[in-house]
């Protein structure tokens, strides 16, 4: 019997969710007969931040734009790396210590592409996807320090400094 090398036409699974992330479902989604590797990233809620004990986190997103930016990441990693499929889910709302806030699964025929793509996906997500977390401590709450997304260059000529 001839082995079919045709890759599945199932689309990538990209989602913002309010319930716990089903990691097994994401892994199952990307994993197929032609894959030799599935690399995953599990981003979870840490119990401390800047030396203070964290009670819980609350995530909010500019949902339509966040999904669009996550789709861009999926498209980019397909272009840059020899991967098969990707699944990315980010959770919103209140998350307790130890819970998964973001989960990424990438499949590929050979492991280097999946490792590289998974790393690129989480690094890019943390820089470009409009999601924010508020950290709650025993004595108050703060919006987490974040990264300023890369902004387009200004087209207007800058005013002279004088």
């Amino acid at each position, binding site marked *: 019997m001839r082995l079919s090398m045709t890759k599945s036409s199932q689309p990538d699974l990209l989602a913002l969710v309010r319930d716990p992330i089903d990691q097994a479902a994401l892994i199952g989604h990307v994993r197929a007969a032609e894959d030799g590797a599935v690399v995953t990233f599990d981003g979870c809620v840490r119990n401390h931040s800047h030396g203070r004990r964290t009670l819980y986190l609350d995530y909010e997103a*500019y949902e339509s734009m966040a999904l669009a930016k996550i789709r861009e990441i999926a498209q980019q990693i397909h272009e840059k790396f020899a991967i098969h499929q990707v699944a990315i889910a980010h959770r919103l709302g209140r998350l307790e210590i130890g819970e998964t806030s973001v989960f990424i699964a990438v499949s590929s025929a050979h492991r280097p592409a999946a490792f590289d793509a998974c790393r690129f996906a989480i690094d890019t997500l943390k820089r470009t996807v409009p999601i924010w977390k508020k950290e709650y401590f025993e004595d108050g709450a703060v919006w987490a320090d974040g990264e*300023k997304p890369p902004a387009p260059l200004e087209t207007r000529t800058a005013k002279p400094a004088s």
Partner: protein
Amino acid sequence: MARHSSAGYNSLVSLSSQTARVKVLFFGRLKEIVGQAEDSVELPDGAPIEALFSHYGASHPELARFRASLVASRNQEFAAWSTPLHSGDEVAFLPPVSGG
């Protein structure tokens, strides 16, 4: 063809030219400063995003302090502060992102 307003950038009041109604979204600490997540504003057609920000900065001085750390978006795409706005546009002011 819509002409750019001659109104100053800090003015959202347009006496003669066409106006544009845009939707404005605030997130994270900006939402807390402004006290609302969403607003709808009328401004001169073609006015830049910067003018819209100045409008809110005038009534919320604390907001202006964050200007250097913010990025703006227009219709779900990161946009330069000089980007001209037109009716139906959706603008958001985005604090540094901290997902993951």
